[in-house]
């Protein structure tokens, strides 16, 4: 039972990550492989605040979101001017730099040793220690994120995002400030991603830089694409399938030493196959084909 709850919580964390990236990749058509950087930023901000300053969970959550959003602006404003492929490389560069900082700034982030003993969340005197309590917290935050995303994509703002995705020049010619919209959605996406980082750090109670590598970013973008771009339910579906599938393999009796490899091979193969036959994913609507 504990095990199933554990997986459900992980699925919830990934749903938040995927939905936030879907706003960027699926709705606006901006491919970023730096999502794990914002995810990691959230985790580290929450962990460091809790360990060094002993601030409560909700304060850390807000601080993490603010930090990620501000960093999103810092990164987004200069880089979003760069076009398609080069933007991907720029986000890649940012991802590698972030990992390098987390890994090498030992005195502050703990370096490769990571940060152990992160306190579990305590919300207004109610401490969350059991798995089922944590699941409730994750579900609530998932629902909030989903609600925010739905409101955004159904709003006029969201329609402009889709317009940018379909034809950037046309959107510009209609008087939309395209770069401003891009920066805004980039900030929003970064801020939402940090929520899952906070949840991850307080759930596992230990973080190290290897959870926030380029490979993790590629995994997140794979979920978005396989689940379905430009469709929030696609992100939910993708996260459920891709996070739980490797766990099912464990029951087949695969040794745990190769389980991680199998998991990555699985989503790598799915990514290639989807790119060939169904680039918009299971239930998506956009396929990076302009």
């Amino acid at each position, binding site marked *: 039972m504990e095990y199933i709850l554990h997986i459900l919580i992980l699925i919830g964390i990934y749903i938040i990550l995927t939905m936030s990236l879907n706003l960027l990749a699926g709705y606006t058509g901006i491919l970023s492989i730096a999502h794990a950087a914002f995810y990691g930023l959230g985790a580290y901000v929450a962990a460091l605040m809790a360990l060094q300053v002993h601030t409560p969970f909700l304060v850390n959550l807000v601080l993490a979101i603010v930090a990620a959003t501000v960093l999103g602006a810092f990164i987004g404003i200069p880089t979003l001017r760069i076009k398609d492929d*080069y933007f991907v490389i720029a986000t890649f560069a940012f991802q590698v*730099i972030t990992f390098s900082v987390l890994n090498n700034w030992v005195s502050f982030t703990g370096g490769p040793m990571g940060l152990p003993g992160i306190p579990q969340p305590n919300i207004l005197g109610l401490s969350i220690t059991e798995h089922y309590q944590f699941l409730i917290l994750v579900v609530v935050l998932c629902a909030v994120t989903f609600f925010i995303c739905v409101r955004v994509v159904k709003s006029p703002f969201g329609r402009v995002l889709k317009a940018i995705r379909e034809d950037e020049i046309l959107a510009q010619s209609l008087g939309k400030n395209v770069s401003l919209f891009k920066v805004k959605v980039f900030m929003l996406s970064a801020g939402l991603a940090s929520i899952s980082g906070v949840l991850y750090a307080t759930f596992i109670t230990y973080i190290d830089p290897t959870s926030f590598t380029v490979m993790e970013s590629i995994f997140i973008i794979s979920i978005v694409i396989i689940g379905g771009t430009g469709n929030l339910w696609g992100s939910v579906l993708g996260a459920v399938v891709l996070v739980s599938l490797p766990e099912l393999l464990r029951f087949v009796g695969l040794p745990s030493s190769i389980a991680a490899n199998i998991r990555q*091979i699985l989503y790598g193969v799915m990514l290639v196959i989807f*790119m060939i036959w169904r680039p918009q994913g299971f239930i998506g609507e956009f396929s990076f084909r302009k």
Partner: protein
Amino acid sequence: MIQLLVNSVITFGLIIIVTISFSFIYKVTKFFHFAHAVVFTSGAYFTFLFKVWLGFPLFIAIPLAVACSTILGCAMDLTVYRTLRKRKATSLVLLLASLGLNVVIQNVISMVLGDDTKSIRTGDVQVGIEIFGAYITPTQIGIIITSIVLVILTAIFLKYAKFGKAMRAVSNNPELALISGIDSERTILYTFALGSALAGIAGILVALDVDMTPTMGMNALMMGVVAMIIGGVNSITGIVFGSLLLALAQNFGVWKISSQWQDAIAFIILFLFLLIKPEGFLGKKIKKVSV
């Protein structure tokens, strides 16, 4: 000081092979072939396979490994990329597919051969030869010579062979090339073959110098991408300059700050170039949009 210079020359020799091989493929196919990283890694691991598992001597194992890497690169083009091109996929779709391929093959390597460091070096640790107070091992001299020879050979080949011309034609306009009687699919395949062979050789050279891990390719490839972008995609001279600048920055950066920050230095340079001069410092201005 001189040691840093010598180190820079070695790094330069390695980066330039990766950069040239990657930029060929980029020039002709117009997408970032991320799976080039595992082709690079595969060169080292195939050598390991032939030498340690099958017991071939090194001078037979290396050509066999290069051949296998070439086949791997061509197989990627034939199975995945060609299908995608037929479906008129954009460069982003191709990029994503190559990321997928990279993840798959890298994990196959680490599953079959393990994540630990493997070595194909023979004998004891080599003691470097002293030149002007700097140390350099025979292997490293070999790396420098091999890379100079390879770069000159490819440059001559591209300039004077018919294939070089075909490559430039396809890079410029695939449809027009097709009309003029150039088989663009075949040219792309040959480009992948040439690029993959060079990448395989680079992988072997790195492994001879500092051993191998399954993730070594990604790092090398990123250095290649950085060098290509800061040098400017369209000229060999630019690529040489880019690789040189990167090699110097990485090695002299270590002089002031510790060596773990090498990656960060490279990527900060890339970041600055992308922001300030995305066409590279010898490249021509790219037209920003076309309707």
